[in-house]
């Protein structure tokens, strides 16, 4: 169908917004790329990709890396804390979820009219949230910190909080690393401080985009969107099982695929 939709839409999000589908993406305000120069084309590319993958936006807290360059004070104030995004997010949720719950606690107070469906729904969810938040279906996200990246020399990039993010996702560093390297089309390894050092120059955004896809593919439960899943290897197949709803699916093994020989003279012909 709609053949003009870019391919990666499908691939990136698989149409589901992993953490919080209710939330409509906010225009990423501060997309100032690290002046650490990446070719312009790539930067624009990147931005497109990201805007496409919407849902996981929420995955990364204050994702526009807290730049040391003050961007514009207002937005800084809002976003400085990890919770920056959360703020307006809650607002969004409120509107949608409990739109009918106004100031005076309950709209039906003081009248003997029937409850409206929406009101009841809102009410039940409020109660649920208070008592059994885990049942309320709020994907109160596991928030991921944005990747922190350093450059090592001119040809290598160090992904500083790699381990950290693996832990957040509850995934084996090896697995995450395999995916990252395959997608980046490069090689790399952990250094003494458990940082991931990869060959090539990459911006935090690059890692972020890939991690997002990783999460879609290897972390999020398709059924309930919960990130609370276990990835196991069952006779040569990787299997993803959801701790929350119990559903499972097999996931693709990570394959690096073709890697061109670069460096000294491209191979071939």
């Amino acid at each position, binding site marked *: 169908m709609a*053949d003009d939709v870019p*391919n990666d839409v499908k691939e990136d999000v698989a149409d589901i917004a992993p953490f919080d589908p209710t939330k409509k993406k906010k225009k990423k305000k501060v997309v100032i790329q690290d002046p650490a120069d990446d070719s312009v*084309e790539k930067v624009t590319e990147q931005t497109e990709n990201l805007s496409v993958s919407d849902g996981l936006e929420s995955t990364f807290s204050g994702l526009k890396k807290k730049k040391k360059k003050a961007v514009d004070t207002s937005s800084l104030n809002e976003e400085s804390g990890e919770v920056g995004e959360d703020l307006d997010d809650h607002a969004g949720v409120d509107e949608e979820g409990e739109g009918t719950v106004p100031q005076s606690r309950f709209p039906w107070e003081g009248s003997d009219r029937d409850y409206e469906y929406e009101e009841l729904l809102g009410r039940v969810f409020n109660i649920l949230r208070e008592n059994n938040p885990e049942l309320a279906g709020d994907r109160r996200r596991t928030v991921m910190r944005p990747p922190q990246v350093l450059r090592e020399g001119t040809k290598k990039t160090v992904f500083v909080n790699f381990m950290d993010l693996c832990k957040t996702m509850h995934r084996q560093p090896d697995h995450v690393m395999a995916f990252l390297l395959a*997608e980046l089309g*490069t090689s790399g390894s952990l250094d003494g401080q458990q940082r991931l050092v990869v060959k090539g120059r*990459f911006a935090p*955004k690059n890692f972020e985009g890939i991690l997002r896809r990783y999460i879609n593919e290897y972390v999020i439960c398709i059924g309930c969107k919960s990130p609370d899943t276990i990835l196991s290897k069952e006779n040569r197949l990787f299997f993803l099982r959801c701790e929350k709803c119990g559903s499972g699916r*097999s996931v693709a093994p990570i394959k690096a695929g*073709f890697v*061109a020989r670069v460096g000294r003279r491209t191979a071939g012909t």
Partner: protein
Amino acid sequence: MSELEVDVQIPTAFDPFAEANADDSGAGSKEYVHIRIQQRNGRKSLTTVQGLKKEYSYNKILKDLKKEFCCNGTVVQDPELGQVIQLQGDQRKNVSTFLVQAGIVKKEHIKIHGF
């Protein structure tokens, strides 16, 4: 175009498993066309296209791609993966669009990798 028509046969029916199935076939990942990007020295990059059907003339496709995007490229023979098209620069979007429009690959069979 004609390829696409086929897909639309039952436009109203929503198959809740469509996605899951699609993903499953991804597990085999055999029939996917993979479009990847790789960094070269400096800010240069390279796009590779792997997994086109063997029946196609790679050289012919390559020629069209090169002409279309004004970039250089080559067909490489990989011992395991067979023939792979390499293009200079990041042509992932371009290639994907081209392959779909030319009816060479269906959109859902293309996997774009990279950062």
